């Protein structure tokens, strides 16, 4: 019996080489990000592939370095479907396209306003792709975004990924991962919001910037959110902490810059005569990081005035977002989930007319702002007036 086992084991060893799935690293083309555009017959897929030979040798800051060769290769192909377009890349790429390290999916506005299912079906079925991939939309041609060599990073994907991860610093843009995008997309009542990427110039260089957000309606893109509306969205979704807000000093109208140290928003719902009402309560704790106004905020009365102005500014941001959501007929603020959680029984009857009810819903906004921190200074940076003494 032992002999049989030995023979069997030796025989089975031949299957252990793993040849079927052998993917040598030097035979793979690592896609770092992908851009999707619409064509007359389907899709144009642009993949940003790391050039393994030059990638490791390229110092950080591709555009500013002396290295002339880009550490990545942009390859485009077209097809009736995304998968066909990706497979068509094999005609020009000697290496197998490998999706595991993809960081960003960028789609053009034109494509996003079409059928989203066509786009995301491929990405949700792909076993190599991670659901932590960021999703973004751009107004022009998506492929062009990937051609911009960043100033500080090696390649566009790393640059865009880091910018998205730091959106909370500006509070003017947002980021969404594929898993969260799919969650909102799959939900019958709520809708996703994705990053908006634009090209801008810094001196003579073209750079990529995150500005505002793209709002999706029922299964396709509905429109854009501007900076204020995006900030309101971040407030409502509790993603604002760490951002800045510049307001005008209530005493002399000069700008005061505040860092939002902590921002917490609660949404409560009630139903009156079958119409849902929402109360958004935002609480924030901010810190004065810069001010041009001459007011001394050590005086609690003065500081309270500034807190009132901050609260009012936040209220306006949230109001503008709610108005945008109702105008787009897109519940990207998750009001339906709030209503469902709070009024489980009523939701069963209300849900059938949710789109109509959502646009009719009354939204009250309460903001409570505190500024307990004034940075390192004990008083304003104002030259001391001459008093005759030294």
């Amino acid at each position, binding site marked *: *019996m032992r002999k049989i086992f030995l023979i*069997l084991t030796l025989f*089975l060893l031949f*299957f*252990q080489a*793993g040849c*079927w*799935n052998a993917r040598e690293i030097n035979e793979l083309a690592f896609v770092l990000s992908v851009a999707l555009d619409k064509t007359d017959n389907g899709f144009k897929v642009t993949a940003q592939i790391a050039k393994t030979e030059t990638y490791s040798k390229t110092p950080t800051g591709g555009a500013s370095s002396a290295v002339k060769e880009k550490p990545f290769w942009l390859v485009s192909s077209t097809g009736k479907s995304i998968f066909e377009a990706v497979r068509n890349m094999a005609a020009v790429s000697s290496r197998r396209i490998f999706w*595991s390290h993809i960081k960003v999916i960028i789609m053009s506005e034109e494509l996003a306003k079409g059928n989203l299912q066509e786009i995301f079906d491929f990405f*949700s079925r792909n*076993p190599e792709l*991670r*659901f*932590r991939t960021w999703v973004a939309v751009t107004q022009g041609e998506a492929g062009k975004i990937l051609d911009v060599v960043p100033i500080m990073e090696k390649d566009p994907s790393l640059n865009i990924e880091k910018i998205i991860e730091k959106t909370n610093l500006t509070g003017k843009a947002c980021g969404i*991962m594929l*898993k*969260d995008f*799919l*969650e909102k997309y*799959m*939900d019958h009542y709520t809708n996703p919001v994705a990053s908006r990427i634009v090209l801008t110039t810094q001196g003579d260089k073209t750079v990529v910037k995150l500005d505002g957000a793209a709002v999706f309606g029922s299964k396709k893109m509905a429109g854009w959110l501007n900076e204020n509306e995006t900030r309101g969205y971040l407030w409502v979704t509790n993603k604002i902490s760490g951002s800045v807000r510049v307001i005008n000093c209530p005493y002399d109208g000069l700008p005061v810059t505040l860092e939002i140290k902590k921002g917490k928003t609660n949404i409560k719902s009630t139903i009156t005569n079958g119409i849902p009402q929402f109360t958004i309560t935002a609480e924030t704790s901010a810190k004065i990081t810069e001010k041009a106004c001459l007011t001394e905020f050590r005086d609690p009365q003065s500081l309270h005035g500034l807190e009132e102005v901050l609260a009012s500014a936040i209220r306006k941001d949230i109001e503008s977002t709610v108005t945008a959501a109702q105008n787009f007929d897109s519940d990207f603020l998750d009001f339906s*989930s709030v209503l*469902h*959680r*709070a009024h*489980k029984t009523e939701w069963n009857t209300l849900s059938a007319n949710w789109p109509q009810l959502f646009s009719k819903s009354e939204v009250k906004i309460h903001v409570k702002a505190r500024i307990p921190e004034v940075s390192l200074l004990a008083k304003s940076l104002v030259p001391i007036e001459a008093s005759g003494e030294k």
Partner: protein
Amino acid sequence: MNQGKETISTNQFTAILVCCTWPTIINYGSGFLARAVGHDMWISGIMSVLTTLLFVITIVYIGRKYPGKTIVEYSKDLLGTFLSKLLGLVLTVYFTLRAANCISMYIHHLTDFLLTETPFLVVTVLHIAVVCYLLWKGPEVIARMGIIAFSLAILFHFLVFLASLSEINFNRLLPFFGPGIINVTKASFIADSFVGINQIIIAMLLPLVANQKKALRSAAAGVSIGGAFFVFYFIVELMVMGPQVVALMRIASMDFVRSIQITQYLHRFESFMVALWYWSMLVQAGILIYCAQKAFVQTVGVKKEKTNKILVFAFGIVIIILTYFLAYDRVFFLNYREFKWQYLALPVNYGLPVLLLLFMLLKKAIHAIRHS
């Protein structure tokens, strides 16, 4: 195959039951349950564990009345020879099918995510060869392996916890009982089709447990710990991905693991997680085939040790064929496992203990009447 009397300790018994409870339900079960009741799938899971615990108590109670006998053996006393043979054959088929299900899920995990180009049959044959080797060594070796698998399961869940921390959103679990208590209870039958086999496994393994006095406690601990594992996994999976995405996926557990990371430095660790999960799947498959073989042997009355050894090969080949026919076609397997399997599983898991209990009580009553 081991000679002499086979025994397992109570800890090993607990570990085996843990391994038989959590790994398959997190694999395919989370998708089934999310499609049925969305974010309340974890409540259905808890209901299923509680139901199973009730039946565990029942089956241990019956088993203790017939010390040293498996369900197939004592059913002869309760149901008579013919019905006991029938029950033995039903259990043989049931355990064999369940083993094929378990193996199919593992094979799908490998062939659909990690070894996408390796032929299905190759992975199947290799995996079943390992399971059969374990079976060849006997239940004590499977039980010892169970202890290792249990330890790795703890590590698995600890890593899941760590990796999910930054992504969890409690609101994704609310409102509780959203689809209604009846629907959530109905969905617990889906979880039962995964978890409920424990009481039948206990009925087959009980004679092996060295300390019969502690058998109930260790059986209940095994089901409870295994249940806690998968309910925890469900909750975290829901809080990270949301019920819509879990429902979208065929094998949501793998997509979940692909969606989490431990800080910025330990990501893409799904292969590592599969390695931790594998041991429990291996133990489960080993125990299921052992139970199938044991039920067959006791039904047909095989006594020769050599025949038992041949049976290991025979069962291995049968399960390779079954796995291929059940699971090669993913659409067929998904439909069969999601919608058809419970019609076989639930009557066996719950009907059988109830039937045996009724016969036992009836027999007792008749005995009491006769003596009075």
